[in-house]
């Protein structure tokens, strides 16, 4: 018990004892007043707002504070995101601050051993190592690897330091592993990133189609809002389109199971039916849509140095119809396993002009070797029937992390990106150079490494120094054995800023103790373009320091004081004022900080004091020009959204005689990503203490595997022993197994394949070939 805990404990014991003895003397009389005000009244705590620390939904929370500690949580009824409801992670989120093994001191590896040093000394070591590595190996030998859990200021100063000052585009973030395909999908179809709609679409839609998205566990608060819409609305339907039966399937009105990767064919078959049945909204298509063909047979990124650039060729309606001829429901039934009549039925829902349709998706479509394509194809469906950018008609790409949108996508902490635009565009570089106050030549016009290639470069030795913040790549990288061995090689220097020991801090040369969440002031941006501010509500323990301030301290040691001039008290205000200059236009203007401090989040574009709920819709979006009709897809120079002709192509590794099953990986509602926070929350760890493998009942019977027996999974890259679960949390289809990735003791990513979408460079964690072996013997538990 710390002194603070002891003080709280003693105070409460004294009060309880006094109240108890007093009550026994005079029953039914209140004694609060005699004890000096409220006794143990949770409603008398100080409640302060913050967005949740965990997923991309961005629920508003109220945190109860007592004696400088967070002691309770409730949903913020004022937040339009969650209206007072949370999920089990959110309700227990503040416990993640108080794990007993919190990293509170800096550590530096000396003679192979990590030793505690002052944070000042550790920051000196980091700065000196950056300087010496650049001197010896060039500027592109140092890299920054951050996260969609970076606050907006974290990502902004990282980009400014590496891209603006050091002059390298070696800035990436784990969001590459989680939403890069969503970004390239938006960019190729609309020319601008992030959804056109917002969560309020849920309250207007009649049909929800969930594309490979177990929302009941992954976006539970939005899922409950959808169930509420169905409960109170007339004839509202939820259709689960998935490769695995989950809680979402059971809650849905229909569950359609498809073979891995065949979503590409299904989306085209829906379009085929929309055309064949004349359900296309011809005036919308004529006015607002253009047709493009891209490259095909585009590879899988398995080789080091793989490169691919797509190219758009103009095509017409007739060519599009000819392209769709390959995707009759009967042919697609053969590829996908979904009966042709069900495909026709699904198309009829999209095609019915009387129904508003919202499609949701997340990792199923994004972690996909054709992730960009499947994003394009679902937009095609909505564009053909004109069901887009108006209340309830919404193709909605959900995000995984609390600030994947706010930080990684909007600040642009990816190798090719800048806070506004891309490094390859001179106007964008000029804007960045001007706002940052650096010479234009500082900003390199060539992108360097995307995430997988960055870890390959570390393995090869092209990168010698990497600084990792708020993420745990030694659990999350696919084909993990290669990248861990690479990070451990002689002459590689890894700096890790984190809050708890992880497999990544295990291989670090310097560990910097980080403050987390509301131990610092910061901002997140959620899935619906909502920016959310949180104040510092409690003090960080020990020497813990925000990632923003760590970066600023190192920048100053490298001689960039003038680029990072802010005092600690004013640095968030200063950063926000500077950063928002990048987006100061009607398409992306962001709210001023003083308003963000008061309200539970504000959506951009925020123009003249108004949030924009439906972009591109001339009735809602001040940037949309009515000259183009009801909609103006202003992201593209032709003011049109692009329908792409994207074919079905198979994944790179499919089950064969040696590895006869599919391996799918993912999450559970109780755990956040690699579990470094949620496993330290008692309720969450105790609910799901370890990873396991879900096996289909028929496969298990055939192999003689009983529930909770030990089995072994083997892929070309590694093997792992796990407990088999049959008809437990989810039911994989025959020939498929599923493993959650949160467990650092059972690393399923040692088995996964590092293939990726050639356009987005996002790996596919959902499909590789695996062999299931029976070991026998029940797990002791």
């Amino acid at each position, binding site marked *: 018990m710390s002194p603070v805990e002891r003080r709280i404990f003693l105070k409460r014991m004294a009060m309880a004892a006094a109240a108890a003895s007093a009550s026994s003397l005079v029953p039914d009389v209140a004694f609060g007043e005699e004890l000096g005000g409220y006794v143990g009244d949770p409603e008398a705590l100080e409640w302060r707002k913050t967005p949740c620390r965990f997923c991309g939904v961005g629920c508003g929370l109220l945190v109860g504070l007592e004696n400088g500690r967070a*002691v309770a949580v409730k949903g913020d*009824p004022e937040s339009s995101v969650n209206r007072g409801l949370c999920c089990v992670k959110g309700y227990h989120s503040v416990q993640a601050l108080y794990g007993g093994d919190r990293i509170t001191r800096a550590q530096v590896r000396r003679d192979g051993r990590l030793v505690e040093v002052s944070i000042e000394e550790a920051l000196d070591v980091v700065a000196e190592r950056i300087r010496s590595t650049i001197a010896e190996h060039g500027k592109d030998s140092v890299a920054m690897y951050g996260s969609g859990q970076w606050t907006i200021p974290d990502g902004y100063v990282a980009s400014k330091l590496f891209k603006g000052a050091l002059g390298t585009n070696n800035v990436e973030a784990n969001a590459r592993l989680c939403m890069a395909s969503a970004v390239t999908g938006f960019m190729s179809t609309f020319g601008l990133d992030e959804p056109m709609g917002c969560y309020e679409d849920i309250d207007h839609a009649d049909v929800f189609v969930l594309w490979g998205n177990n929302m009941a566990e992954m976006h539970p608060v939005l899922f409950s809002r959808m169930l509420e819409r169905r409960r109170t609305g007339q004839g509202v339907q939820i259709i689960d389109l998935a490769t695995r039966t989950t809680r979402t399937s059971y809650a849905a009105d229909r569950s359609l199971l498809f073979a891995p990767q065949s979503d590409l064919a299904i989306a085209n078959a829906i379009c085929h039916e929309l055309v064949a049945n004349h359900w296309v909204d011809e005036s919308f298509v004529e006015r607002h849509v253009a047709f493009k063909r891209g490259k095909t047979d585009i590879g899988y990124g398995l080789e080091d140095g793989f490169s691919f650039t797509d190219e758009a060729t103009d095509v017409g309606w007739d060519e599009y119809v000819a392209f769709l001829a390959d995707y009759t429901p009967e042919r697609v039934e053969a590829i996908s396993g979904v009966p042709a009549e069900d495909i026709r039925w699904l198309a009829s829902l999209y095609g019915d002009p009387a129904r508003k349709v919202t499609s949701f998706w997340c990792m199923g479509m994004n972690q996909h070797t054709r992730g960009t394509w499947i994003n394009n194809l679902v937009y095609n469906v909505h564009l053909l029937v004109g069901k887009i950018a108006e209340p309830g008609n919404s193709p909605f790409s959900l995000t995984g992390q609390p600030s994947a949108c706010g930080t990684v996508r909007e600040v642009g902490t990816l190798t090719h990106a800048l806070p506004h635009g891309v490094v390859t565009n001179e106007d964008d570089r000029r804007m960045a150079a001007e706002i940052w106050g650096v010479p234009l030549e500082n900003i390199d016009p060539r992108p360097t490494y995307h995430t997988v290639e960055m870890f390959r470069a570390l393995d090869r030795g092209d990168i010698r120094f990497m600084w990792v913040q708020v993420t745990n790549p030694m659990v999350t990288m696919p084909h993990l054995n290669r990248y861990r061995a690479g990070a451990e090689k002689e002459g590689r220097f890894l700096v890790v800023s984190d809050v708890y020991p992880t497999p990544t801090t295990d291989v670090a040369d310097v560990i910097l103790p980080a403050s987390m969440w509301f131990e610092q002031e910061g901002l997140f941006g959620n899935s619906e373009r909502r920016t959310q501010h949180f104040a510092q509500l409690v003090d960080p323990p020990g020497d813990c320091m925000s990632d923003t301030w760590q970066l600023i301290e190192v920048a100053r040691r490298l001689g960039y004081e003038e680029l990072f001039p802010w005092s600690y008290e004013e640095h968030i205000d200063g950063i926000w004022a500077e950063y928002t200059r990048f987006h100061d236009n009607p398409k992306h203007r962001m709210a001023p900080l003083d308003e963000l401090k008061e309200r539970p989040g504000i959506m951009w574009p925020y123009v003249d004091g108004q949030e924009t709920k439906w972009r591109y819709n001339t009735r809602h979006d001040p940037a949309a020009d009515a000259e183009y009709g009801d909609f103006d897809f202003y992201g593209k120079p032709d003011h049109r959204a692009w329908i792409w002709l994207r074919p079905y192509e198979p994944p790179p590794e499919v089950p064969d005689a040696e590895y006869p099953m599919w391996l799918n990986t993912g999450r559970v509602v109780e755990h956040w990503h690699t579990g470094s926070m949620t496993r330290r929350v*008692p309720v969450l760890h105790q609910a799901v203490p370890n990873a396991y493998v879900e096996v289909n009942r028929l496969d298990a019977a055939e192999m003689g595997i009983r529930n909770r027996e030990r089995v072994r999974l083997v892929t070309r890259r590694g093997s792992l022993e796990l407990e088999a679960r049959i008809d437990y949390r989810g039911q994989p289809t025959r020939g498929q197994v599923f493993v959650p990735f949160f467990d650092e003791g059972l690393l399923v990513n040692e088995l996964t394949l590092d293939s990726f979408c050639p356009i987005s460079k996002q790996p596919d964690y959902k499909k590789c070939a695996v062999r299931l072996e029976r070991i026998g013997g029940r797990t002791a538990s």
Partner: protein
Amino acid sequence: MSDEGPLGGRLLGIAVAALVMLAGVLAVGATLRGGPDVPAHPEPGTLETGQPITEEAAVFSTRAADLAVDPTVQGRPGASGRSLAGFRALRAYPGAPPRIPHALADDEFLQATCNQCHRRGGWAPRFGAYAPVSPHPEFSNCLQCHVPANTGELFRPTGWVAAAWPVTGRRAMEGSPPVVPHALEMRGNCVSCHAGPAAVAEIRTTHPERANCRQCHVPALGGPEPGAAFSRPLERPGGAAPPDGPDGRGGGA
């Protein structure tokens, strides 16, 4: 097995009258939001949807007639009941969603069939107990917030300290109705914890036949202590605040 149900609401304090009202206030008007949230060019027919008043939403959501067992019934002898200690042990802090204290069959876990028992309550032979009634049966993704414990171990030690439980039975004077010492969001249905055979013993109401609980029992959430004198601010609104004027938050804990 503990004696506490998964979906019991967290009504503490006092005997609160129990049967529940017939009126519903789930959706209260589109007028609640507005101001800067309203789109620049409102589209007819697609204005803001009504949002429930979250604090009030559940208060009248379960009607006595919806329950499997009359809330005035105390229950059969030998039934395992709920105690306040068990109630608290299932919650990480006052107001936290309780853990699921009983085993779940795998298909129950996958399909979240909780409301089969917890929507209406009733005798559950499997547990030898009355199922507590959910204060918010309109929600059906139960496992979003309520999870079982599959181990008693911790992954790592924790230094977490929870908020204290509120003192029950606070009232202004002898004989006056006690105040409600907790927030009502998600747990405004008094029946769930305070009446019926699954009620928590220490906080069971003496008068479950009275239906309009909040006629007499009002929330006291961080305002002045019940019985404390109201003091009129020395200045009118808009003027300078008096040195010791009420701050709307009360003294704090």
